[in-house]
């Protein structure tokens, strides 16, 4: 065995470059595989995983403290279907002011002695838990952004007391906005009691509702103030994630395919390149099996090293990506699951071994004499016709020689090209999907149209009838679209539904109409695609809503672009039928050209003290994720594809050292050598681009509608129409560029070949 090890070690040392290429390619590929699998693993139910980790509440119920005692609630929670229960916790809605903020905010504060417990284990990710009076912990997503409390901030209670923020915690159950110690809670005058339940069976709304019925048995009927099912949170999370999970999955799979292809190409190339060495080993008396072992060892050493490094790197890269992608779940514990690393550490070397095995088995069978001559004796007869034809063309000879090179080893060229094709396909798809999602998100958020949002300072339903006119009078106002939300229920359906009544400039500011038209008269509504799908309705159908005024039949006249499933859009004229006293309580504003939004917002506050103007929520967050993912995967794919090309170029120039020496001896300049080698690979790149781009565009046409279907969203045609000529040209160049970059270094080293040496030696 020691002779085998010695030979393998020598082989690794002598082939530093080859060894390095195998190591790097396996490393980058493993990184990609870990990120890809990590995305796949985490995206299959990220909410459930994160929720389970926090032992999130299946049901959170708030009871009136005056009507139900703690003892009653605890007794009722003794039902056998309750897996775990937390509480009773005293709860109050407190107007908490903070330094530097104009208005106090009503926050739900709960008194809790510790963040752990059988239900709703809080992730205290910053600071510590509130244990003494005067301390408060706020609920905040660790990867959230924007306005938030920081440790050390002072908040004031309505009674004039001061609380210091000592910690930031995250509750996926959204059980409170802030927590204080039970002793502190007593001073805040709790009016309610919170109970958090986990049920043995909580898969469906019916099960959660049944659970609720059980745990409220024996509690006075009027005591329950409100409750939240985790299914609502889950739907919300799923809706946010669904759009790009499909996208990430598509990429995960593509990355995987490219990685496998290139590893196979590089590894089998390494073995084929060693045929001559195999002959020498055999001549020395190595048995065929020993030869096999030498070769497997030779590629295994760098492969295992690359795999280990790649796994680490993949984990490191995936973490920020995943926690950004699923930030609404809090970053706690969101990382690549351990099984992914294990799979990569076992699977990649196995894949490498398999790629090496086929040529290694061939090496094992190869007679020594044939193997020794394999390096120099070319198998004449391959691609000769192409060479022949090329030599007669008007192209510079260096170029036509280069174009002929890929024909000499058709199998290797095909593998290299397949990798380039897949690489270009993925890049095409990535850019297309990224652009599409961006367009969708911007269209959905009406980015550009809505520049400022205005709310009545008094909160929902705090508006007054004169608000719209007042707003229109502010200089710089171009269009105003006011709305009011009225909670309704579709008769025969239990889901809470919101009727959004619009008044004002719906043309420029309203949601895009995907089908049908915008509702214009009383009793006409428009809905999102998901509403139609989930309720089995279509345009033209009539259904009945209930809003306290008695049943009102409404007719669907259009499908519009927005993502809030449980919202129905109607014209203000419908208010008369449903809620005659409704008042506009949200205004979306587009400014006159050249108006500075910042100045405008200040202007609004000055002109109308009862209104608050804020910038609209942008689509930036989502765009960021898509951008990072696209960039990361595109870069990795490009690097791996370029490395594949690099490897092929290295192998083919090595094999053709003698030809290169001869060509130089008859006057080929170093420049011509570079042109020849780069051309040979750029040809593969160009062909790869030519095939990869249409495949990528076709894949985009398939994947995007599939994604939209999965997310049950409708989208305008403009979202699909992303491939413009300049982009396509750029993509075509990308294929050539990847190949040229990969070939440049081997080409230059080929240009430096010492002619005397190769011609002398071979």
């Amino acid at each position, binding site marked *: 065995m020691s002779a085998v090890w010695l030979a393998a070690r020598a082989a690794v040392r002598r082939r530093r470059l080859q060894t390095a290429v195998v190591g790097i390619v396996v490393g980058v590929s493993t990184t990609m595989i870990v990120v890809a699998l990590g995305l796949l693993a985490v995206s299959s139910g990220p909410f459930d995983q994160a929720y389970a980790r926090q032992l999130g509440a299946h049901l959170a119920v708030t009871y009136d403290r005056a009507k139900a005692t703690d003892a009653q609630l605890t007794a009722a929670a003794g039902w056998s279907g309750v897996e775990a229960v937390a509480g009773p916790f005293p709860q109050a809605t407190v107007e908490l002011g903070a330094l530097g903020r104009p208005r106090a905010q009503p926050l739900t504060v709960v008194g809790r002695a510790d963040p752990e417990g059988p239900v709703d284990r809080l992730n205290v990710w910053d600071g510590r838990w509130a244990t003494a009076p005067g301390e408060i912990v706020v609920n905040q997503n660790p990867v959230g952004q924007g306005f938030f409390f920081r440790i050390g901030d002072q908040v004031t209670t309505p009674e004039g007391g001061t609380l210091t923020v000592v910690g930031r915690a995250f509750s996926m159950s959204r059980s409170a906005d802030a927590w204080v110690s039970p002793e502190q809670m007593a001073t805040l005058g709790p009016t309610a009691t919170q109970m958090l339940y986990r049920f043995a069976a909580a898969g469906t709304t019916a099960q959660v509702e049944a659970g609720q019925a059980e745990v409220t048995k024996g509690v006075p009927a009027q005591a329950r103030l409100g409750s939240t099912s985790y299914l609502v949170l889950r739907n919300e999370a799923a809706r946010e994630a669904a759009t790009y999970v499909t996208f990430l999955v598509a990429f995960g799979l593509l990355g995987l395919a490219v990685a496998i292809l290139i590893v196979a190409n590089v590894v089998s190339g390494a073995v084929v390149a060693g045929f001559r060495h195999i002959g020498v080993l055999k001549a020395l008396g190595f048995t065929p099996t020993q030869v096999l072992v030498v070769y497997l060892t030779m590629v295994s050493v760098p492969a295992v090293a690359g795999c280990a490094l790649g796994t680490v790197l993949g984990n490191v890269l995936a973490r920020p990506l995943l926690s950004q992608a699923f930030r609404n779940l809090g970053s706690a514990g969101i990382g690549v699951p351990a099984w992914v690393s294990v799979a990569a550490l076992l699977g990649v070397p196995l894949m490498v071994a398999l790629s090496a095995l086929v040529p290694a088995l061939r090496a094992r069978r190869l007679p020594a004499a044939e193997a020794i001559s394999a390096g120099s004796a070319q198998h004449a007869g391959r691609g000769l016709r192409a060479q022949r034809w090329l*030599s*007669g063309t008007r192209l510079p000879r260096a170029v036509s020689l280069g174009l002929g090179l890929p024909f000499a080893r058709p199998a290797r060229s095909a593998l290299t090209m397949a990798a380039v094709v897949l690489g270009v396909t993925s890049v095409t798809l990535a850019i297309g999907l990224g652009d599409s999602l961006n367009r969708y998100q911007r269209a959905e958020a009406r980015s550009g149209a809505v520049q400022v949002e205005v709310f009545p300072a008094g909160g929902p339903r705090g508006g007054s009838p004169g608000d719209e006119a007042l707003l229109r009078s502010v200089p710089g106002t171009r269009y105003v679209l006011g709305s009011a939300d009225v909670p309704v229920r579709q008769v025969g359906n239990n889901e809470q539904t919101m009727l959004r009544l619009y008044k004002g400039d719906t043309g420029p500011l309203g949601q895009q109409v995907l089908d049908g038209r915008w509702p214009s008269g009383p009793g006409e509504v428009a809905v999102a695609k998901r509403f139609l799908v989930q309720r089995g309705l279509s345009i033209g159908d009539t259904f009945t809503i209930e809003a306290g005024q008695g049943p009102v039949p409404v007719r669907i006249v259009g499908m519009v672009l927005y993502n809030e499933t449980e919202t129905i859009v109607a014209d203000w004229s419908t208010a008369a039928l449903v809620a005659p006293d409704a008042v506009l309580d949200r205004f979306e504003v587009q400014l006159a050209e050249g108006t500075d939004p910042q100045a405008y917002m200040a202007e609004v506050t000055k002109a109308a003290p009862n209104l608050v103007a804020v910038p609209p929520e942008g689509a930036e967050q989502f765009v960021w994720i898509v951008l990072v993912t696209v960039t990361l995967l595109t870069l990795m794919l490009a690097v791996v594809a370029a490395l594949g090309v690099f490897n092929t170029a290295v192998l083919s120039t090595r094999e053709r050292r003698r030809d290169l020496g001869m060509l130089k001896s008859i006057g080929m300049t170093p420049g011509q050598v570079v042109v020849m080698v780069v051309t040979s690979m750029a040809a593969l790149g160009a062909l790869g681009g030519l095939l990869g781009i249409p495949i990528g565009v076709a894949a985009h046409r398939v994947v995007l509608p599939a994604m939209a279907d999965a997310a049950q969203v409708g989208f305008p045609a403009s979202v699909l129409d992303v491939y413009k000529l300049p982009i396509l040209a750029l993509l075509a160049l990308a294929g050539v560029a990847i190949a040229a970059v990969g070939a440049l270094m081997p080409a230059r080293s080929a240009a430096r070949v010492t*002619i005397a040496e190769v011609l002398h030696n071979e």
Partner: protein
Amino acid sequence: MTMSDEANEPAVVQLSGVRKEYGDAIALDGVSLEVRAGEAVAVMGPSGSGKSTLLNVIAGLDRPTGGSVVVHGDDLGRLDEKGLALFRRRRIGMIFQFFNLIDDLPALDNVALAAQLAGVAAPHARRRALELLDELGIAGRRNTYPAQLSGGERQRVAVARALMNRPALLLADEPTGALDSRVGEQVMDLLLDLNQIGQTLLMVTHDERLATRCASRVIEIVDGRVARERTLERTS
């Protein structure tokens, strides 16, 4: 052609004090020599004495570590890599022991290649290549690939390729080394014929008989030095 004629011809090759070291090994140790236009010079010597190194230095395939090499007026020490490539293309034709043909190209294209690299269009290059193959008596094998040619035929293709750009100097490193004696003689005759129509020739050979047959002068190299020079009366 007589001795005195050649002595009056300009020097095609001028070496003075050329050294070539490979690490500690000294391959050439102060070689000075001249080859005049129209001469046929044979370089002989024991194995490892530096003959191939000498040829490579003259062809600009290798750079000496000391001394100067001037070929056809070009001081090779002053040329960069590209300059050397262009120099080889225009001035030098080289023939090797193992032919060094490109296996993927048929005989004709192997020969045409040398001109095509210099930018000659394919039809012109092929026409001239065919003329050369015809002159060397293997025009009938023009579409054959090297693997299917005999050793002698391969060497003729190599000679044709070396002549393609009308070189000032034809260099041959054991051109008959890989051939049996009968075929070797044919190749030697070919070189002799070329010399007789004015081609300057510098060749390395182990075969004293062949040297005396077609060289007018023999330079003997021992341990990287010129040990002896003798002028020959050609036997044919």
